[in-house]
């Protein structure tokens, strides 16, 4: 039987991982529900955001201002990408086209990162070091901090979506694209906002992960997949769904390796998600 400390550490780590998935998932779910696109290069936005933070901190900018600048820069990049690449064109299958365009973008960005960011190992400065005593179990402080950042970002996003005109329009557009169009909501503006918010959140996730884990040109592919799994688990277009999905996936990935070893930890989350999808074909909180 595992001790209380081990459980504590596994759970806290799982929650931290889960919040990173939620950050990735928020962008993906906004883009998918508002624009109908599957943005597979979201992981590369995450990676670029993290590397931008690295280069900014090298220029004597503190890590927190650097994260904010990086989020803003990625939001701008998101708007440009929406305008140039992802705006729907007539006569195309939106979902397939977006998969191909974003895969092309993935290839270009990850290759550019390998070539451009150099071979020597890079690392972000630690957010905070040492560990924190939680009911007698040592828990890394940086993970607690990452949870804090993610929660604050999500609360801000939630407030924005529920309290502002633009946010409400986005929610309406996500729930019913045609209907909102008839109500005079410009779908292109909604798409731009979705991309901007999504990319900014990806940059935040990338910076947090780059600091507590590692910085690497291919760091984005796994979080992207986890983000996708999170949104289908929770239900497309639902913010509470994404949070629930992220927590489930995070806890599975945090606890299973500790309790049951590597093999079970790799296979079990996939099987669980598959089963959830088979019994709830629209995710846990999904609706028709």
């Amino acid at each position, binding site marked *: 039987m595992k001790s209380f400390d081990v459980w504590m550490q596994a759970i806290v780590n799982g929650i931290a991982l889960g919040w990173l998935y939620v950050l990735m998932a928020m962008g993906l779910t906004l883009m998918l529900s508002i624009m109908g696109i599957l943005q597979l290069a979201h992981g590369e936005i995450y990676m670029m955001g993290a590397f931008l933070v690295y280069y900014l901190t090298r220029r004597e900018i503190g890590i927190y201002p650097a994260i904010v600048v990086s989020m803003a820069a990625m939001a701008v990049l998101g708007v440009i990408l929406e305008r140039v690449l992802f705006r729907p064109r007539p006569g195309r299958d939106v979902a397939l086209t977006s998969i191909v365009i974003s895969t092309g973008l993935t290839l270009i960005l990850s290759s550019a990162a390998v070539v451009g960011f*150099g071979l020597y190992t890079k690392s972000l400065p630690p957010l905070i070091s040492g560990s924190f005593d939680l009911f007698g179990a*040592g828990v890394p402080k940086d993970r607690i901090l990452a949870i804090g950042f993610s929660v604050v970002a999500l609360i801000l996003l939630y407030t924005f979506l529920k309290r502002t005109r633009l946010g409400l329009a986005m929610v309406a557009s996500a729930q019913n694209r045609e209907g909102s169009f008839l109500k005079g909501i410009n779908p*292109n503006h909604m798409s731009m906002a979705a991309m901007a918010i999504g990319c900014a959140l990806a940059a935040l996730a990338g910076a947090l992960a780059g600091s507590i884990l590692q910085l690497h*040109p291919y760091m984005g592919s796994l979080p992207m997949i986890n983000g996708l799994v999170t949104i289908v688990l929770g239900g497309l277009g639902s913010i509470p769904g994404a949070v629930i999905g992220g927590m489930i996936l995070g806890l599975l990935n945090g606890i*299973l390796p500790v309790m049951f070893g590597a093999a079970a930890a790799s296979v079990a989350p996939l099987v669980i998600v598959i089963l959830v999808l088979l019994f709830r074909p629209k995710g846990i909180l999904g609706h028709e």
Partner: protein
Amino acid sequence: MMSGKKSVALLCVFALLVSLGVAVAACGEGEEAATTAAPTTATTGGTETTTAPVGETKTLKIGGIMGLTGPLSIPSLAFMRGWEIYADVVKEAGGVKIGNDTYMIEIIEEDSKGAAEGATTAASKLVNQDQVQFVMGAMLETEVAAIYSVTQPAGVLYATANINIPEHASDVSPDKDLFVRLAVSPDENQPLDLDYLRENYPDAVKIGVSQPDIGYEGMFDRLKASAEKRGMEVVHAEKWAWGTTDFIPTYTNIVASKPDIIFAMNSGQANDQLKAARQLGFTGPFVSNSPLGADVFLVTVQDPTMLTDVICNSPDVTHPNDAMKALMDRWTAKWPNDGFVSDAVHAYDIPWILVQAMQKAGSTDPAVVLATLEAMTNRGDLQTNEGPGYMGGQDRFGVNRVLYRPFPITRIMNGELEFAGFFDPIPE
């Protein structure tokens, strides 16, 4: 609403950007191609003007395969730079003398994409298009097997740059012809590290082991046996899934088993593992027996309290020997914007050793070179950047086709490197 013209203009800008990107990439490559091609042109120029008295100047083409795209691209690119530096060194020395002829070395680099089929096409291109007689490289067992299946029927000598699991089906064996491993067995340094621990941490006896789940069982058994022989004990062994990025779960169990020592078996992610172990409160000696550079620990872990009592088997770039110093200077001159990556040290050894065998054989025939190499079994028969090397492995693999050379031991204390020296492998 957006006008048609505007969107067309935007599209054009994007197409332009993309084309520009491609053009820049192609130009950059053009330059690179020019530099790598330089030895050849210089050679042909040389033959025309200075009619050498004995023999002639030729170009020896060696194929080099690494996964240049995909997750392993960063270490692979660093590895290839080691080869390029070797070609430069030969060029500056006016070639190497093999038999009666002087040879320039041209290394033809190909991408395996880190996968079997990519390695097959790369090897096939080298063997059939470029007609090379020697192929080196690859990091993964599956790539090694794929390359060997192309080179062996063509009569080409293949020197692998890495094997993660010694004695695996794709490793050297008596029934495989024209195949040699110019890379050490990753577990040969385990006894050396344990000796170092006994000497410097006599009270530490309980070891917690971390290993990837890709078949390290054989190496783990050797580690366990070596430990028991020295009065130490493995108290916990944890496997982590290949591709893991977060090591907190792995180390939660290891640290909970209260070991005196943590031994991270041959992993390029030992730096992340150290971070996890220290964050979970482990303060004892942490051993990494992979070639991962000690400097990488410093850059990535940063916190000096974590960077204490870390023992690693990396070439110490802060205390380079003469050979390594020369290599690092060349790197800095050639790629001033990129810090030195120590993978280049081992990479450089591979073509260098092949050429040493060719010089001794006086031939560039792959079968003769292999036979000569197999007979170079005395310490010092081969030179490497890490000191005197030799070919061995008869007792373990049934053939003397594995490189043996001294291992460096470096200890990190308070974020500073303390170089302990080079240690010869010991039979265990």
